């Protein structure tokens, strides 16, 4: 088999953008390995629009957004291997994969970009009591049945979790003639984008039950009903007497996305418990030199536009690494302070250019001040009216501010009154 300089694991939006950026930067021998039968990843089943608004100033459907990038891949001399599963990534920069044509084979590129994406948290992770009959799906599985296979998994639906896929599927199932009785959310706020709450629930009169969860699922062969109940906002335990029953044949779960990092963990790459992805520097390079990560395998993005942007950083950095230009003299650690869930990257190597830092807040807040600190000293202060965990925040750290860092740490924190 051919020797590659760069292997990209995953041909979704992140993998494609990374490969294209690496090629344009100067890497000439690139292979994308994709487990599915075509490039595009989960975008292929996201037939709704709303993609590309930031990047292309166009309102695209998922497959259209994917096609923009697969066209770019095709235009370049980038090899693509489809229906191929990567079984193992080694810290010595080996990639072992398998497909029907070549069997099991191992590659030893100079750099690797991990772009495996994420998967949905399943119902099983929640230990919800009741039946395990047909009619229980994760929202993404239902989306695949409807949009790819062309079949309707049910007609009377209750959805647990108000993440974006749950919201999108509430609308999609309604458009297909199903009745969506309720969307329940255990938190006091939705983790989905505001525009999706409006366009997918409000516009169709679908009720959103905040602080509610499913306490029982009934049915033998097929689901016949669910019972939901209000939860105590502190301990999240159901409150007796608040139960509401719905007759339904389908329950969808949209209860979070988990970066799919089995390969990363098995390679021994240090992980962040907060993002559930690898710890990276501003180049999206993991703690193993020459192995990069980007897209939803690194942290779950709100918009694919941001995943593409991040992937391009990884792609260009892979070129810099291969050509020996990644200069790292000093490391500054980025720390999530008060009311901040995570920051990414978790470290910045200096010298650097300006670095755009991504972070999430832990709760819904109003009238907030973000503070960036070098040790105890506040170096940036920025006000904002409202923030929510569902919307990613960014802040740019200027090159000179980074070089001037004294404490070795930069902390980002939020001052606010709880909403």
């Amino acid at each position: 088999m051919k020797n590659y300089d760069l292997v990209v694991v995953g041909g979704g939006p992140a993998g494609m953008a990374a490969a294209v950026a690496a090629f344009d930067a100067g890497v000439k021998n690139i292979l994308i390995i994709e487990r599915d039968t075509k490039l595009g990843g989960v975008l292929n089943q996201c037939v709704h629009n709303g993609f590309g608004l930031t990047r292309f100033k166009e309102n695209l459907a998922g497959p259209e957004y994917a096609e923009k990038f697969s066209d770019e891949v095709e235009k370049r001399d980038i090899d693509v291997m489809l229906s191929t599963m990567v079984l193992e990534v080694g810290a010595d920069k080996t990639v072992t994969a398998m497909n029907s044509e070549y069997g099991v084979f191992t590659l030893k590129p100079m750099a690797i970009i991990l772009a495996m994406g994420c998967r949905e948290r399943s119902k099983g992770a929640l230990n919800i009591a009741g039946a395990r009959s047909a009619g229980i799906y994760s929202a993404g599985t239902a989306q695949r049945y409807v949009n790819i296979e062309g079949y309707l998994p049910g007609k009377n639906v209750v959805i647990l979790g108000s993440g974006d896929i749950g919201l999108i599927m509430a609308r999609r199932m309604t458009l297909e003639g199903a009745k969506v009785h309720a969307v329940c959310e255990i938190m006091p706020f939705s983790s989905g984008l505001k525009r999706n709450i409006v366009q997918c629930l409000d516009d169709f009169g679908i009720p959103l039950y905040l602080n509610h969860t499913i306490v029982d699922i009934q049915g033998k062969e097929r689901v016949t009903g669910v019972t939901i109940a209000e939860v105590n906002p502190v301990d999240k335990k159901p409150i007796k007497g608040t139960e509401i029953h719905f007759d339904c044949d389908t329950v969808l779960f949209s209860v979070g996305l988990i970066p799919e990092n089995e390969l990363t963990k098995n390679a021994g790459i240090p992980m962040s418990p907060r993002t559930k992805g690898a710890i990276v520097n501003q180049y999206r390079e993991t703690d193993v030199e020459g192995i990069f990560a980007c897209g939803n395998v690194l942290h779950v993005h709100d918009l694919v536009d941001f995943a593409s942007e991040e992937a391009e950083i990884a792609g260009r950095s892979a070129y810099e690494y291969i050509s020996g230009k990644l200069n790292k003299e000093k490391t500054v650690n980025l720390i999530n302070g008060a009311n901040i869930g995570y920051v990414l990257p978790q470290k910045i190597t200096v010298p650097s250019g300006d670095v755009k830092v991504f972070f999430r807040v832990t709760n819904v807040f109003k009238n907030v001040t973000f503070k960036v600190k070098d040790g105890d000293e506040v170096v940036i202060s920025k006000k904002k009216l409202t923030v929510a965990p569902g919307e990613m925040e960014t802040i740019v750290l200027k090159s000179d501010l980074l070089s001037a860092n004294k404490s070795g740490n930069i902390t980002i924190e939020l001052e606010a009154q709880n909403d």
Partner: protein
Amino acid sequence: MYDILVIGGGVVGGMILRELSRFNAKICLLEKESDVAMGASRANSGISHAGFDAKEGSLKAKFNVLGASMMPKVTEELGVKYKNNGSIVVGFNDEDMETLQGLYERGLKNGVKGLKIIDQQELRTLEPNISDDAVGALFATTAGIVCPYELAIASIGNAMDNGAELKLNFEVDKIETGEYFTVTSKDGQVVKAKYIVNSAGIYSDKIAGLIGDNSFKIGARKGEYILLDKESGNFVNHTLFFCPTKKGKGILVSQTVDNNIILGPTATEQDDKDDVTTTADGLNDVIASANKLCKKVPVFNSITSFAGLRAYSDRHDFIIEKSALNDKFYNVAGIESPGLTSAPAIGDFIANEVAKDLNLNKKDNFNPTRKADYFFKNLTNEEKNAVIKKIPEYGKIVCRCESITLGEILRAIRENPKATTVDGIKRRTRAGMGRCQGGFCQPVIVSVLAKELGIPYEQVTKSGKGSEINVGRTK
């Protein structure tokens, strides 16, 4: 006309069928569900018990010790995963340690080898995550873990490869006695046989009742479980029990053969013999008990929870005997724990008894082995490549969490006993049993099933009629 009918396709019926298939006889298994291994064999702890629990002289003691000794060879022949991991009964106070001493002595009387009482220090070395309150334990080195549904499926498959027949969706409704038995199903199918073995699990009292034998009653005891991701697969190494009480062995924490961790079961007696739902109280009980046995059980890593029903009889021992009303009708009932462990020995015993009665000869060409490719992912790369070269479908991974290939899924559909449902494929291959619980692979498996079975996509079921996964086409 069959020589022998076995009613009930669980692990006990399966092992009986397999042992019967050694003989020249026309045999058939009747199963009311859409697949085999749908009752207690579908959802239990999967433990091959050492044999110190059962009272000396009981059938449980006899078949347990015998079955445990047969398990390594049987599982090897049938290509079923088995691991001799050893079990540990944990003591928390002096009273417990006395109980353990009693179990130790009973074990010796039952003929169990490899038993020893260990102190706190040794216990902590063996199981670093054991509760700080544990003071000592009984260590049984011969105990093991085995996959219960896999053993049932493989034994039935092996019997079928040796000529046995299987009738699924055959719910026995009527048995007429006479010179021979005439058995009618709920939907009107009729089969005749000279001999019947009743191994119908929680319904075995009902089946015996069809010939007027009401000599025993079978109750259903629900057991709820939580399964943890293989990422936590080494949380414990052995099977950990509390000291047994009157209600049974209690909640255990154990590794499974597939390197998950299993927590459970609860033990709730119930009248409804079909209700396998989990309950909030039951799952909370599992978590609380597991956390008494071990420190900081990683429940956050749970991938599923489920419940199964175990049969128990009003005689508190196995019922393995000819019906008093008909000497051609064998009852094998009330096979509660240690039923899985005992199954190979029960199968062997029943087959030989029936063969004697019917004067059967052994086949010359009985093939005891069933080559499973459940182990594909454990092959070396060279071995994998050899398989892929011959059958390219083995190069295509369908279930990414458990690394299950299209080749394995096709084989599950084509090989005895043939999978016809999504759950049937899951039990045979593990596709859909990983951390995403089928989220990614289920739509693919549905399309493979539709194609292989030659049925429309929307008619593919999770687990038999009424459990169709899709309700129709989109607009």
